[in-house]
């Protein structure tokens, strides 16, 4: 890993960056923005060094401290979990599910999957948890940016197909959700 920890998110290419945007409809309100940033700093995992917020094109850049210990320990976990290397990436795409009682949450980008906001913390979701559309169900770390992955619709977690610290490719199925109507 290198000294430079800052990779700005590109418009449109990093869905996670979009998800990190302040939700306030009133960008003039500095107070709102301050609260949003403070909240962001509190919820982001790892040791933060800097958060830069730009108004114009609405961009948030997060810089983590060098040698992110917390992440390293997770990465180590990954390598031991997959001693055969990273060949599992090839078999990542599961056959589509015909049963429309289920819906999937897929990886929108290539990166490292984390089930919890920080090592040792409770996972975002477990099997049988209920989620709403917009609930954060995982994080994918890419280019040192933590990208929250949110459920597209509401449902009950039926299956988690990826383990913590595993590499994921674009479009890989992370979770299966049982649709609400069926669950009720």
């Amino acid at each position: 890993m290198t000294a430079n920890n800052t990779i700005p998110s590109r418009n449109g290419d990093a869905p996670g960056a979009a998800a990190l945007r302040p939700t306030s409809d009133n960008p003039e309100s500095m107070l709102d923005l301050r609260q949003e940033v403070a909240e962001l700093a509190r919820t982001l995992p790892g040791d933060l060094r800097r958060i830069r917020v730009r108004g114009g094109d609405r961009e948030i850049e997060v810089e983590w401290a060098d040698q992110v210990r917390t992440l390293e320990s997770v990465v180590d976990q990954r390598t031991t979990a997959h001693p055969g290397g990273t060949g599992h990436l090839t078999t990542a795409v599961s056959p589509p599910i015909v049963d429309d009682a289920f819906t999937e949450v897929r990886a929108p980008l290539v990166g490292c999957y984390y089930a919890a906001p920080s090592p040792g913390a409770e996972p975002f979701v477990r099997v049988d948890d209920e989620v709403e559309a917009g609930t954060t169900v995982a994080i994918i770390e890419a280019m040192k940016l933590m990208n929250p992955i949110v459920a597209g619709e509401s449902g009950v977690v039926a299956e988690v197909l990826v383990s913590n610290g595993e590499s994921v490719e674009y479009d890989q199925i992370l979770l299966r959700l049982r649709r609400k109507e069926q669950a009720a």
Partner: protein
Amino acid sequence: MIRKLLIANRGEIAVRIARTCREMGIEVVAVHSSADRDSEVVRLADIAVNIGPPAPRRSYLNIPNIVEAALQTGADAIHPGYGFLSEDPDFAEICESAGLTFIGPPPSVMQDMGNKATARGLMQQAGLPMLPGVVEPVRSVGDGQEIAADIGYPVIIKAAAGGGGRGMSVVHSAADFSEAFVSTREVARAIFNDPAVYVERYLAGARHVEVQVLCDQYGNGVFLGERDCSLQRRHQKLLEEAPAAHMTVAQREHLGALAVRGALSVGYTGAGTMEFLVDGSGEPYFMEMNARIQVEHPVTEMLTGIDLIREQILIAEGLPLAFGQQDVRCSGAAIECRINAEDPARGFAPTPGRLDVYRAPAGPWTRLDTGYREGDQVSPHYDSLLAKLIVWAPTRDQALSRMDRALAEMAVDGPGLSTTVTLHRALLRHPDIRADRHDVQFLDREMPSLLASAAEIHQQGPRVPSLTADVVCAVPAPAEPIRLRGITPRHTIEEVTPA
């Protein structure tokens, strides 16, 4: 030491790079879009990673996903191929800062060579011959007209950031200058996001001759002969050959030396190509440098026996060149035909679709580089290059006959699919091409008659007479043997005498 290499490309060049990696014992990571998940390179690779949806902007140009794929798979190097990110200095820099070896020149050199005006300025300083014209971008119509009057008409207006044959116009008289200037700037702004244009003398009847160079990180450089790529349709190459047999041995050696001098003067490393226009008397004029592996590199590989991808990788690893100029031997003649999924009769419109029939030619000195297999879909998202057919023979005439034989063996068919195969067979039969006296405008000028000839070949089907001795006898043999630096050709004269 590179142990695992990620190929940031698709199609034939990804397969080409994977093959050399295999031969060198380097593990291959293929990245692919959702449209390419069953492609040939994915099958050949040790690891494959889906990096995005079919649109190139979201997959093959998606820098975060590509770099992340390299880091997640433990790759230590990235080969960008050609096109896509191959000439993006930002990508090269991001790779380096992520600890990945980028197979290519340093980002700063790539940046300089990527801007035609900057490249021209640097090459002029290095003493390379330039067409009369200006190096600096021309700011106004008035300035441009003054310059054009100074260097004399016809002139060509070129986009400084141009490439791929787009963003250039030829102006024959002062009356047309203003309109052409404004429209070229508009095109340059629209396509390249940079309206800067420059003006230089336009050479009629010129040939496109380019020199393949290899430079290591220690200031050593060699040239691997040259390639003639004069057969272009609207500045898109269709057929390339080597050597440029219309030039004398002395002229070719001089050109090679100029190319190496130019490349070393800017600190170039790896494989690169210096493009020149050569006039009727063999005088060269520098055009531009391509800071990457080129589509037509196999022509040089066939001529020299040197694997250019292997050399790129060894140079990127920091090894010095293992051979000097005196060790580079060019023998015989090589030709490449680009087999595109395009309909020449409909303005070369791309014809994507399924390859129901796709059979490769084979046989002596016949090479087919492709990323497709029978049954594959040719996606409308990517360029239309299906395959590159390359042949080698001791003489140019024999190579032309061999190419025609190989083209006849090639079978490509599918619903709505057209290719450039019969157009190539028409080209090989044209007296100007057989006599090696065509120029860079030849294709655009002769297209109607070539299309008629191609249609005839198509109708005749298997009854097309092969290209043999009668045509060969009509063309005088080259005055000089094809070789460099007085090295004896590997093949004896007896072998090359036509029947």
